[in-house]
């Protein structure tokens, strides 16, 4: 059983699933967060 798991893990590590779209999606999300946060931060500075 344990062997089976290790074997499965090895094959998985050799061939990682293709997740280019996922990487692009989460980075788009990240840029949205940064843009919004920076906007409010500048609003705060502007109102100081």
């Amino acid at each position, binding site marked *: 059983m344990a062997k089976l798991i290790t074997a499965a893990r090895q094959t998985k590590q050799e061939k990682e699933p293709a997740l280019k779209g996922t990487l692009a999606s*989460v*980075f788009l999300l*990240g840029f949205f967060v*940064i843009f919004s946060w920076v906007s409010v*931060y500048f609003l705060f500075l502007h*109102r100081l």
Partner: protein
Amino acid sequence: MHIHKYEKIWLTFGIGCLIVFLTVVGVSAFAAGQQPPSCLTTIDPEKVDSTPPFDHPGLVKKGDKEYELNIVVAAFSFTPNAIEIPKGAKVTINVTSKDVIHGFEIPGTNVNMMVEPGYVNSLTTTFDKPGEYTILCNEYCGAGHHMMTARIKVVE
């Protein structure tokens, strides 16, 4: 635990952003003094009217262009409720409540703080632009909550 290479990239980037955000607000709070209002002074909420400086609420000149504005908050009013401030004045606003929790906000500025019975809250701001500013209560305090307002006039 197996983590996909791209997920490692994403988490490094994401956590990096969070650290940058925390550093920016941390440095501006602890080094540049832009802390959120957190006054630790206490007061007897039933003796506000006889406790200085709230026994004579209003604007007090403290130095060249430096002022103190002491305001008593109670359901459903601010005392005083019409204030004139010279342009460019650096004003420390002190507030306290005689009854329940209130809010103290000047829309369009960073002036925003909780007013709680038993505590003085305080915040310093500079009024650079002339014109009319509204003070309002932004914490629910009862039936007249939305009628609670006062006016500041910044004059040349």
